[in-house]
Structure formats: structure tokens, C-alpha cells
């Protein structure tokens, strides 16, 4: 089980019947890795995640998700190994309560009701949605509703999480929550591949950058070598601050920077 690579793409080509959308794309994502898929609009980022979920199939090359070649497989055949967060939660929300909405996926996978219940309870706790479990998703504010959709992608504990703009339209609290959950899931071995324009979220939650441009991988490097170094990806405030203060090796997140700043302040006081 621990030897399965969550996602492998081998010289993948794809088009929607016109110009090439992806050409010669090869990529491996290992367990626990967090990959930010970056690049301009129309570079093929979302298409790549769709291939990984078997929503589309490559013209040539191979896509292997959770150890299963997507050739001849349908998305429902991968639902137990991969979770997909669509850009708009309205694509999937239909149940009358948050709890039922999150429980829908595992129910399709043949889990026992006890297993479903436990998994749902874990996700509700993780996302801070316990007190809202009985609400209708559409009665919640938009950012919270997006968290519900994320919960539905997380609940089956997939080997691979595919997230399409997971922080779009989120408020700051929800964004911090998503970053925290992504980190926790990665620590437990889940691989995460996120299409995102939100570099602040990316540097908080992920650590590898794959930059697509016109369907090709332009760059595959540690995220912190790209953000703030490549002019296309300006440093978000926390990263800029930590670099200017000389904390190059620290994750640019509030909870990791704050203790350092506190001790520096104390140290400063002692010295004075």
C-alpha cells in the first residue's frame, strides 16, 4: 500500500479536438507531496487534473492514478483513491444537510454506515463544520459552502487530492483552515495537487511548484525557489517579510513565524 505512487503522468498529450492543450507532460507526485500547479489562464492546469481523475483520457501517454491506469477507467472507478474539488461547489451540492452531503461519496463506495459516520465526523471536525452539520449547504455563506465541498472531496481519505482553485472566494479564516487541513492531510501521507493563483495559500500549504505554459511543463522546482524569485510569481506578504528578516528556511505562515518573532523581540529586549 505504501509503495503506491499517487499520480504518475508519462509523456501525456491531450487536446479537445483542436490545438494541443497538454504536450509531453511527465510528472510524478509522491505520497505526502504538495504540488502547486501554476501558470497563466489556458495553460492546461485544470485539464491536467481532469486527466488525473479520468474525466478525460490522454491522446497518447499514460496517466496512472493511485496505481491504476486511467485508460479504460471512469471517474467513479477512481473515487476511492482520488478526491476532486471542483471550482464551483454548485456542481455537486444537492443534499439537505452538510452531514448528508459529505456522507454521499463514501455511501457510493460501499462503506458500512459506521465507517461513513466516523469519516464524516472526522471531516466535520477537521473543517470546523460540526456546529453546522445539520444546516442546508445553501443556507451557509459562500466561503463556508466551499468548505463543505472540500469536505466531500476529503471524506474518503484518498491517496490523491486534486484541488481546482481551493481558496477562490474564501475569506481569510476559511483560507487558513484549508491550508491547515491540506498540511495535516499531507502529513498523513495524502498527495495534493492544487491548481491555484493564490500564492499566499500555496506557500503556506504546498512545497513544490509545477509551472505549465501552453501545455508544457516550463518549470518543476521547490515552490520557494519559484515564488518571489520568478517575476510571474511575486512573493506574498509573509514570504517577503520572512525573507527580509532572514528566516529563509521557515514556512511563511503566521503560526510558524509568530514564535520566532516573539523570541526575537524577547532576545532584543534582553540585549537592550
Amino acid at each position: 500500500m505504501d509503495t503506491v505512487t499517487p499520480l504518475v503522468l508519462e509523456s501525456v498529450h491531450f487536446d479537445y479536438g483542436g490545438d494541443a492543450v497538454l504536450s509531453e507532460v511527465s510528472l510524478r507526485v509522491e505520497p505526502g507531496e504538495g504540488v502547486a500547479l501554476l501558470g497563466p489562464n489556458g495553460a492546461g492546469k485544470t485539464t491536467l487534473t481532469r486527466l488525473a481523475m479520468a474525466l478525460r483520457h490522454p491522446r497518447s501517454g499514460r496517466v496512472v492514478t493511485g496505481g491504476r491506469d486511467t485508460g479504460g477507467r471512469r471517474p467513479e472507478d477512481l473515487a476511492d483513491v482520488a478526491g476532486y474539488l471542483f471550482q464551483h461547489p454548485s456542481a455537486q451540492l444537492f443534499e439537505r444537510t452538510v452531514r448528508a452531503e459529505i456522507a454521499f461519496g463514501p455511501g457510493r463506495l460501499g462503506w458500512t454506515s459506521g465507517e461513513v459516520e466516523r469519516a464524516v465526523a472526522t471531516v466535520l471536525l477537521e473543517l470546523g463544520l460540526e456546529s453546522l452539520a445539520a444546516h442546508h449547504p445553501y443556507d451557509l455563506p459562500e466561503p463556508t459552502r466551499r468548505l463543505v465541498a472540500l469536505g466531500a472531496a476529503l471524506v474518503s481519505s484518498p491517496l490523491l487530492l486534486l484541488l481546482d482553485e481551493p481558496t477562490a472566494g474564501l475569506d481569510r479564516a476559511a483560507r487558513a483552515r484549508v491550508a491547515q487541513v491540506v498540511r495535516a492531510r499531507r502529513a498523513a501521507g495524502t498527495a495534493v495537487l492544487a491548481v491555484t493563483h493564490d500564492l499566499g495559500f500555496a506557500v503556506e500549504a504546498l512545497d513544490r511548484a509545477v509551472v505549465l505554459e501552453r501545455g508544457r511543463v516550463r518549470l518543476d522546482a521547490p515552490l520557494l525557489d519559484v515564488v518571489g524569485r520568478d517575476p510571474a510569481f511575486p512573493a506574498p506578504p509573509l514570504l517577503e517579510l520572512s525573507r527580509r528578516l532572514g528566516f529563509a528556511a521557515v514556512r511563511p505562515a503566521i503560526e510558524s513565524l509568530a514564535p520566532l518573532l516573539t523570541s526575537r523581540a524577547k532576545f532584543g529586549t534582553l540585549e537592550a
Partner: protein
Amino acid sequence: MNARLLALLPAAIAINLVIGGLVNALGLPLYLDSIGTILAAVLAGPAVGMLAGGIGQVLFGLINGYQWIPFGLVQLLIAALAGLAASRAGFRLPSSSLAWGLLTGLLAGALSSVLSYVLFKGVTATGTTAVVTLLRQVGWSLPVAVTASSLLLDLVDKSAAFLLVGALVRALPLRMMGRFPRAARAVGR
């Protein structure tokens, strides 16, 4: 017409025209092409439902040929019955939704069989016509075959549509329920 209706109606009509393709993925003998009409009638009254059904049929004709325009009458009938059902809390329970769906299917089927026989000589949508052909082959007369197949398919289709709308409206989020006071009455609240 107020801005709210200008926002609601295109959505209801588009649902009528698009939902068939969605349901088709399940391979069930359903069209549900009146679900937007029913929803509009439940949320905003029978007149709005009729507008949705009528304009929807005109646009369906524009895209698929105007031979189907006369079936707009069936849409108007469905809107009227859905509106009536809503005003009598007909969507309160699955069983009551089903009862109104069966009644609507019966009347809609009767009306379409008349249209189908008089205007189309019994040849209309592929599914219905296949049943007609089958019944003719076993010796039923054309008018009887047309009536029987229209009734059969409309009973199934309208029951499913009413059941689905009932389930949807009973589970409507509080916020939307507040925006559409008629919906609350339709489910007996």
C-alpha cells in the same frame, strides 16, 4: 415584468430544455422536460409557470423544428395543474406529489394524444411513437394505441417530475424558501 422574474424565467426555461440531456445519462424512460415549468409554477404561481412552459416550447421549436409548437398547450396545462397543486399544499408529502403527478400525467397524456393523433397522425417523439408502433403491431387501432402510449409515458414522466420537484421544495434551504413564499405553501408550511 420585475427583475426577479426576468432572472427566474430564463433559468426555469433553460432547465426544461437541458435536463433531458442530463437524465439521458441514466438511460431511464424519462424526459422531465416540464420540470422547469412545474418549478416556476410552484415558486411563482401558475401564470409564471405558463410563461416558462410557453416560451420554452417556442424556443424548443426554434431549435428542433416548429412542428412541436402545439405541444406548448400541454406545457400550459401542466403549469396550471402544478400551480393548483401548489396552492393546495400538494407537494407536502411524496404521496401527495405522486397523486398530483399522476393526475397531471393523465390529463397531459390525454391532451397530447389528441394533438398527436389529429396533428401528427400518431407520429411524434421517438419513444412514444415506438410504443404506438408496437401496439399497432399487436392489433390495436391507431387512436387507441396513440392514447395508450401517451398516457403510459406521461404518467411515468409527470409522476417523476412532481416527485422530484416535491422532494426539492421540501428540502429547500430556508433562505430560498423565504424568497418564495408560495413554495412554503406548496409543501404545507
